[in-house]
């Protein structure tokens, strides 16, 4: 997948409002592979909705999303499953970890599916994100900031053309935010992937090509 096109898209709940200031809703937007995008938004402007639409979780929008000219409404369950395994990664805002599994198991659950990273690589990512000592602790017992880092590591355990990061550093301190930024740049370069980051204020420092206001 090389491009993501948005054509006159708008969440259905916004249909009655007069949207004029957005760079995305009701506009034609194109995200290219290999480029970095920051989407800045005030809360309630549909930031997580956008991620849900792109990831195939929700379809309550008008207009159309195209992946390489294919309307994503036409994707089958199998196509979505493959997409989520091989070309599109999402760091959920609400993380969606499994609290009863340990931090490592949460990551392995994804990696067992893709076999993308070795256990060693995963461990070194835990190390880099400064949560090596939490590796065998149940995810439910971790703080939200720690969980955010586990979910981030999990989102890296797959090949991707685009990675969507929905408020990735909302609960991280600056130091960890910087480390996360470095890892993202590193991974994106390796895979020549596009990075789409959303933020409602504090945003992760990346060499953005484009900054859009939602």
């Amino acid at each position, binding site marked *: 997948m090389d491009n993501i096109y948005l054509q006159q898209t708008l969440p259905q709940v916004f249909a009655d409002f007069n949207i004029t200031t957005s760079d995305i809703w009701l506009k034609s937007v194109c995200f290219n592979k290999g480029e970095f995008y920051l989407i800045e938004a005030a809360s309630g402007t549909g930031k997580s909705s956008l991620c849900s639409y792109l*990831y195939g*979780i*929700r379809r309550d929008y008008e207009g159309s999303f195209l992946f390489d000219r294919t309307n994503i409404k036409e994707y089958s*369950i*199998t196509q979505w*499953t493959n997409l*989520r*395994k091989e070309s599109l990664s*999402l760091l*959920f805002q609400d993380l*969606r970890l*499994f609290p*009863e*599994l340990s931090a490592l*198991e949460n990551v*392995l*659950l*994804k990696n*067992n*599916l*893709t076999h993308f990273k070795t256990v060693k690589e995963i461990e070194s990512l835990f190390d880099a994100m400064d949560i090596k000592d939490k590796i065998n602790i149940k995810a439910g017992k971790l703080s939200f900031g720690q969980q955010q880092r586990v979910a981030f590591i*999990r989102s890296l355990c*797959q090949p991707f053309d685009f990675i969507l990061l929905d408020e990735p550093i909302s609960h991280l301190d600056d130091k960890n935010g910087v480390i996360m930024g470095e890892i993202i740049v590193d991974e994106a370069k390796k895979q020549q992937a596009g990075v789409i980051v959303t933020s409602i204020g504090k945003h992760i420092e990346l060499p953005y090509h484009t900054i859009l206001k939602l």
Partner: protein
Amino acid sequence: MRLIWKLLREHISIGQLIGFFCANLFGMIIILLSVQFYKDILPLFTEGDSFMKKDYLIVSKKISTLGTFSGKSNTFTPEEISDLKQQSFTKTVGIFTPSQFKVSAGLGMQEAGIHLSTDMFFEAVPNEFVDINLEKWQFDSNTKVIPIIIPRNYLNLYNFGFAQSRSLPKLSEGLMSLIEMDITMTGNGRSEQFKGNIVGFSNRLNTILVPASFMDWANKEFASDEVSHPARLIVEVKNPADPTIASYFQKNGYESEDGKLDAGKTAYFLQLIVGIVLSIGLFITILSFYILMLSIFLLLQKNTTKLENLLLIGYSPFKVALPYQILTLSLNFLVFILAIGSVYYLRSYYMEAVSMIFPQLPSNNLFPTIYIGLSLFAVVSTMNIIVISRKVKAIWIHN
């Protein structure tokens, strides 16, 4: 897989699964045992004439003293036959064609120096009533061998009466079918030699039966052209316990040879009772299926968030449904194995008693029961698998 199982096994209710397991096992045992019992016991009532169709009656007119003296015919007219054909209980009617020539048969064993010879007769019924390999039931004009079915009583008469009193060797059915009889047919001014080969023994047909095609040919060759009316009819009925049969026979002064209706009736009631028990077993099985489905639905409902998240991180609905499908499949399979085992065990109990009372009962095997159990297992499991897949897909769509 291990991790998924670790996630999804949570909220599994052991109590519910045990409930399902017991109910399903119970239902399955009832179904399989009744089938097995039916298979085992039925031969008692049908007295296996393996080569005759099941539900038929042999009908003749009553022979009364008055009738004999007044010369009243005891044969059936074509009108009477067609009337019988039109009765609601009738499936098909066949006529016994008697031989209209003289037959004498000899049985010889040169080595033993025995030669028995007797005058006798042949009768034939249409091939459709004789459930024997048609290749065997064919007159071969080259070798001149006639296949014959004789009443089992004849053999008993010889073995227990004649042979006993004269210290002659007893003959088994197998040996009898190896012996060739010399048959001489005389009529129409001709006489010809044939060989007879016994291909079967009948408990229910009190006659010496030859193939219908042979009879037609022989009657043409050895008898004058006169048409004879049949004295006996063979009637295939839909249900031998039908009360209209008895009343129709009584009205027309027919009788059916000895108590064949009774065996039919008993077999019918056996069918009825087994049918009732079978449906109870089926009912329990269906209920247990519902218990399992409810339990699995509840489980899926409780684990919805987890299933959703698994689907979101790239697990296919197939992979997510698989652990639950394996769970139900193994439960069903365990039930199947245990049910077959129990039937085997229970069967050995009643078979011991039954074989003491009826030692001649042919021994059956468990295979039909295993087939039925296997197909039940397949049907229930397929339904489980489909329902679970659809439920998981529904979670996806809901997303």
